[in-house]
């Protein structure tokens, strides 16, 4: 049954090719600052074309009104959410939408299972599509919950462990479903069980991962939903689904890797460490959690700061980052931010070490301030950027009488609204003591060589 006059399959396929090209071009353009908006538009156009052509094609069997109704409902809900949502909660929205996309594929696979699971190849496809779609859905929903802080389940809690176990069970069951159910007959509806396990397993997949890693996970889930769509395309022998789906699958994967790198994490680390370490975590929990940040997020925060305090230390000297640091300072000022440099008397390894380097880089003297002058107004500082300094910003010098550095006046960056600490690892400074600053609520660690990190920020500003 067809709604309007049919167009031929050939024509449909030709137009699919065209839409695919648009998708490719769109996603390529999305990757560049100045063409991104246009790229998004092109990809939306491609989607529009693909949908229209399909709708006019000969394969439609469902009542077109049902379809239209679905589209209208979906469009309304989607648009409303997209336009109403606060800018700050965009990441969780993406997670939500992504979950719905996964859910759609889940239903597609289900439907296909019901209608034509005859040949082995298709059967396998259906199992996989179901699984990926389902995991994407429930995983995304959990990610949404975590990001919007509606879901407050501890990483190490019992519930988490339970769900994680179901996740592994669901994986095993999937394998079983693929290889065995065709030959063995079962006393119950194995597929319904797969559906259920999948949905629950997805929860277990994301639950043990920390909130800070959610962006990476969302990107991964996004890649999954692309792969699911591609498999659905194979199932339905639909070109445009295959192309668009696998494009998203692949580019999402790359993006995931890039994002993880920017956060100085490996994907394996993100996905599995939470689970594996959940038992041993409790002790380190006390000192708090280290929250890494990547360059682009740091940039976004700096970009919106109205006062920034830069605290250079020995690490800046080692990285010979003084020139880029000055450049960053200048760019911030050009951006309307007030920039000061907090120079601790013993930063570096010789008296006046920072002065030598900053003078070399032409940082004017009048933006250099001493701890005594800056500490009282620290709470007006939006972002304190600690560049390779450690001991001189270590709060235990004031708080922990036992510490070897106790008694040294420090630059009290922990009182700033946000603190970025740029260093290469969690290792300690000259005095060899751990720094509680790194675990504070308002601290973000930007790992990497200081020159590279600052260089990254500078490029961001210049783009």
């Amino acid at each position: 049954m067809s709604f309007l006059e049919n167009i031929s399959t050939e024509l449909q396929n030709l137009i699919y090719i065209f839409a695919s090209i648009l998708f490719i071009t769109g996603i390529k353009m999305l990757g560049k600052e100045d063409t991104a908006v246009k790229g998004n538009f092109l990809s939306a156009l491609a989607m529009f074309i693909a949908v229209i052509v399909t709708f006019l094609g000969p394969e439609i069997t469902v009542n077109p009104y049902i379809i239209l109704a679905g589209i209208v409902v979906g469009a309304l809900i989607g648009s409303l959410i997209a336009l109403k949502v606060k800018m700050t909660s965009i990441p969780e929205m993406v997670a939500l939408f992504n979950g719905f996309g996964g859910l759609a594929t889940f239903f597609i696979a289900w439907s296909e299972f019901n209608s034509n699971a005859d040949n082995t190849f298709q059967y396998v496809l259906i199992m996989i599509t179901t699984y990926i779609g389902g995991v994407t859905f429930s995983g995304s929903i959990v990610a949404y919950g975590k990001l919007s802080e509606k879901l407050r389940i501890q990483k190490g809690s019992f519930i988490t462990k339970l769900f994680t176990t179901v996740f592994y069970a669901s994986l095993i069951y999937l394998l079983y479903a693929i290889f065995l159910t065709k030959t063995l007959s079962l006393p119950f509806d194995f597929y319904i069980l797969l559906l259920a396990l999948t949905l629950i397993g997805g929860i277990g997949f994301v639950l043990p991962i920390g909130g800070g890693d959610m962006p990476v996970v969302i990107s991964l889930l996004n890649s999954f939903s692309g792969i699911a769509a591609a498999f659905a395309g194979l199932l339905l022998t639909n070109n445009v689904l295959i192309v668009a789906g696998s494009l998203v699958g692949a580019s999402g994967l790359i993006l995931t890797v890039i994002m993880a790198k920017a956060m100085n994490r490996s994907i394996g680390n993100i996905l599995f460490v939470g689970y594996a370490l959940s038992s041993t975590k409790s002790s380190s929990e006390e000192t708090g959690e280290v929250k890494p940040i990547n360059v682009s997020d740091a940039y976004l925060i700096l970009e919106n700061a109205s006062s920034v305090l830069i605290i250079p230390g020995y690490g800046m000297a080692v990285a010979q980052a003084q020139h880029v640091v000055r450049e960053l300072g200048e760019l911030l000022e050009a951006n309307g931010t007030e920039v000061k440099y907090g120079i601790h008397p013993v930063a570096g390894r010789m008296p006046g070490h920072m002065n030598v380097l900053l003078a070399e880089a032409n940082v004017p003297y009048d933006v250099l301030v001493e701890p005594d002058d800056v500490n009282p107004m620290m709470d007006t500082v939006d972002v304190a950027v600690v560049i390779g300094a450690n001991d001189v910003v270590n709060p235990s010098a004031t708080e922990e009488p036992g510490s070897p550095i106790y008694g040294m006046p420090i630059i009290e960056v922990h009182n700033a609204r946000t603190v970025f600490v740029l260093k290469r690892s969690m290792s300690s400074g000259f005095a060899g003591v751990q720094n509680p600053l790194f675990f504070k609520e308002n601290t973000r660690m930007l790992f990497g060589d200081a020159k590279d990190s600052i260089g990254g920020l500078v490029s961001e500003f210049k783009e």
Partner: protein
Amino acid sequence: MIISALKSNNSGDQRSPIHKDTVKNLLDLGIEICFEESIGKGININDKTFEELGLKKYKREDCLKNSDLIITNQALHISELALMKKDSTVLGMVNPFSNKDFIIECSKKSVNLVSMEFIPRITRAQKMDVLSSQANLAGYVAVIEAAKHLSTALPMMMTAAGTLKPAKVFVIGVGVAGLQAIATAKRLGARVEAFDTRDVVEEQVKSLGAKFVKIDLGKTGETDQGYAKELTDEQINKQKELQAKVCQQSDIVITTAQLFGRPAPLLIDNRTIDKMKPGSVIFDMAVETGGNVEGSKVDQIIDRNGIKIIGISNLASQVSDHASLALSNNYNNWITDFFDKESQTINFDFQDEIINNSVLVYAGEIKNERFK
């Protein structure tokens, strides 16, 4: 409590133990400060200025007689101790290793003695570390002096009248003074190389953009205070030999190698000097503790076949104003940390690491093992 600041009894020392920019801290504690007349001469601060700040001017004798605490940049004459009140305190740079008599006399006269040279190298005591604060300035002065005596300019200049090559500066011993020397020479545009026996120094040298000369001497080390350990004879010889090559190509060699409480190692002998280019300058910063350079003499410029060997004592005194500022801050920080506002006295708490290290004599007793 009454604190008196004394002039250096060494005419070459221009520094003052107090500075107009720093006295306020002590006055705020309720301490009365006296000073020996014309104490600020070397730093262009006249007595009136100090008096206007609320300090009292006295003769040296009167200062000694009336004070609870004496601050000074040089050890006093032994005879002067007799003038002092019992259980009063002398605080300052007293060069304990060459003034053992003075220490003994203090214990006899029951005058407490605080040697700021013995401030331990712990983080919290950095603000009192006079050795660092003066060595730092000394490193700067050494380069300015060496530059003055060199017959070429330090930076490279490519000009219409030919290319003037940059001077090569080689810094041996990269402690506080060495680092500042590196920084200053780098600033002036010289090519700077440096060497030290301690391994950690390599990164520090690079952190100033200079080059570290690698000389493998086998196992070397540093004490828990960050001072270098003494080398074996074999190591010293190896070092000398390999250093000679770098010296040969250098226009300025600055040596700063010191060993806390022991004579400085001889690092540059005449064999090396004779290989150097005429017109080069060797600046021996360790000259006061025996010298790193063969033939270097305190406060003399020796000319050996066109090579100038400079030894200047009390380098920091050349920038007397900054040196005094730093010193007075160091002293103030010590006093402030151990001043008991209630009793208006110094709290000699030997549990405290700083007191334990820096107080050589207390209540008639020599406290430091080395001088017992």
